[in-house]
């Protein structure tokens, strides 16, 4: 009832875990059974190792959190050596999230991953990290650069190619259309919303980098609007995310036009939430006589 397809790849459930919110899958041992997920999207990997931003990197806000991790990661070579073997064995599908600064950055990382093999089913391309100059945001705000990058990567893989979009633009549809024109199999929406926190007692900013990315329930309305707008103009599938915490939230994103969804910030508090959501979605299908959860996709009254 929960099986969904993206291109030729079938996922057991439409619930993926969002990049940067589930580590590399090994940290949750004992806390979650990853086989219930449709798949895991790994923390953004870059061409070279990155130490990330200095502390503090996170702060709580009303119904949300700010983060500015700064794409800390061990680099694509380290990733292939240290993380891939474990991920290859996991009983769920793996999508590798790739970030970069320049076109050649993305392409080199991508080629190393493709050459290395591994049984990941696809890539999610982060062109929307608001927290580092090198986060690809230059791409994420430009339809031309998005299309160009998508095309270059498309040439280089037969695996799923998913472009991850930013809400921090005047018109997200233009970026989505560019990804589609470039040959992406799907888009993910949304990455975090730019925000800032201030500690009055210390008269200091809450994040070392001043600005960070807002995630969690606070941004769900923003994410739903982005997904819905995209669904009106795109013919490729949309992977919805932003503030999903419950099965009801997942249904909202599917009603708004998502094929799959990702759970992010909620994993920190409830590392097993993705799983319990799946159980609830099955119950929902039964109650409503749906043969597949996507039967309600986009089925919004007005």
């Amino acid at each position, binding site marked *: 009832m929960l099986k969904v397809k993206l291109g030729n790849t079938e996922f057991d459930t439409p619930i993926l875990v969002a990049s940067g*919110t589930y*580590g590399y899958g090994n940290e949750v041992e004992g806390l979650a059974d990853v086989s219930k997920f449709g798949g895991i999207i790994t923390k953004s990997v870059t061409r070279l190792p990155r130490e990330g931003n200095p502390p503090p990197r*996170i702060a709580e806000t009303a119904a949300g*959190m700010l983060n500015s991790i700064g794409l*800390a990661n061990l680099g694509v070579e380290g990733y292939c050596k240290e993380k891939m073997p474990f991920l290859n064995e996991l009983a769920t599908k793996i999508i590798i999230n790739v970030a970069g600064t320049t076109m050649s950055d993305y392409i080199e990382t991508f080629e190393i991953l493709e050459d290395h093999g591994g049984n990941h089913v696809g890539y999610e391309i982060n062109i929307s990290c608001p927290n580092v100059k090198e986060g690809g945001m230059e791409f994420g705000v430009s339809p031309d650069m998005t299309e160009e990058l998508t095309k270059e990567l498309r040439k280089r893989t037969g695996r799923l190619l998913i472009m991850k979009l930013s809400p921090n633009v005047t018109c997200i549809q233009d970026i989505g259309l560019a990804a589609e024109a470039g040959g992406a199999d799907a888009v993910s929406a949304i990455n975090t919303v730019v925000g800032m926190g201030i500690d009055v007692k210390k008269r200091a900013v809450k994040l070392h980098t001043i600005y960070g990315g807002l995630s969690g329930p606070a941004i769900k309305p923003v994410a739903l609007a982005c997904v819905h707008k995209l669904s009106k103009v795109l013919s490729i599938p949309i992977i919805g995310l932003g503030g999903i915490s419950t099965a009801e939230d997942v249904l909202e994103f599917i009603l708004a036009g998502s094929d799959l969804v990702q759970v992010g910030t909620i994993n920190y*508090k409830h590392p097993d939430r993705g799983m319990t959501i799946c159980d609830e979605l099955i119950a929902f299908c039964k109650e409503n006589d749906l043969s597949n959860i996507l039967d309600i996709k986009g089925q919004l009254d007005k």
Partner: protein
Amino acid sequence: MAFQESARVISTEEIAHNTFQVFLNSPLISVAVKSGQFVNILPAPDWEMPMRRPMSVSGVDGSHLGVIFKAVGPGTDLMRDWKIGAEVDLLGPLGNAWHVSEKTPILIGGGVGIAPTWFLHNELKAQGVDHYLIMGSRTANEHFIEHDVGKKLIMCTDDGAFGVSGNVITGLDTIREEIELSTVKLFVCGPAPMMEAVREVAVGENIECEIALETVMACGFGICQGCTMEYVSNGESTDSYRKKFGLVCMDGPVFNAKEIKTCYL
């Protein structure tokens, strides 16, 4: 390996001014936990804020696990009001543990940082290991342990109302004549200024010292990378993943004082 466990409140007590000790029945975590480790707590079943609240374990007693905390905000306010029998969702045990060596342990705690030192103190007592316990606070009503120099229990108050007048550094100074500090190892947890002061003394005088750091945590088990501390540069290129910045929840909370650039996080 960590567990998610639905624990139950067994007892709750105000042990000092605005300081509470709660015991929870948590058969999985209590058996696995070591002193220095922590649990990540859901203060209420319908807790709406995006982060749990991390708390060091203050001791175990069979399947019972203790935490000691001050009520300082919405999460700890709810914890203060926990009723006996209430269910509490825990993740744990998390983080690394103290590394006791051959050297004489001197435990230094203060503020909300008393829990992990209290755990270690009771462990050492049970093992018959000779050690000192130095606790600091602003004034008398924040202490719940007797001041007894003979028993090596040294309480310090900023205002001098109880025990040694001064902070924990003054407390440490009072035993310098008794014991050569090169033969001791410090185990420290407390407010950042306190930890920072001890760190400077320890590094300056080359005293072995472990510090349990605290910072904001979203997950507590390594998946958010939010809880960073900064390592002292070791000369090599630090431009590399988890060489310059460590994760307090996984690489710590206990760090060698020499590795820590600053305790202010």
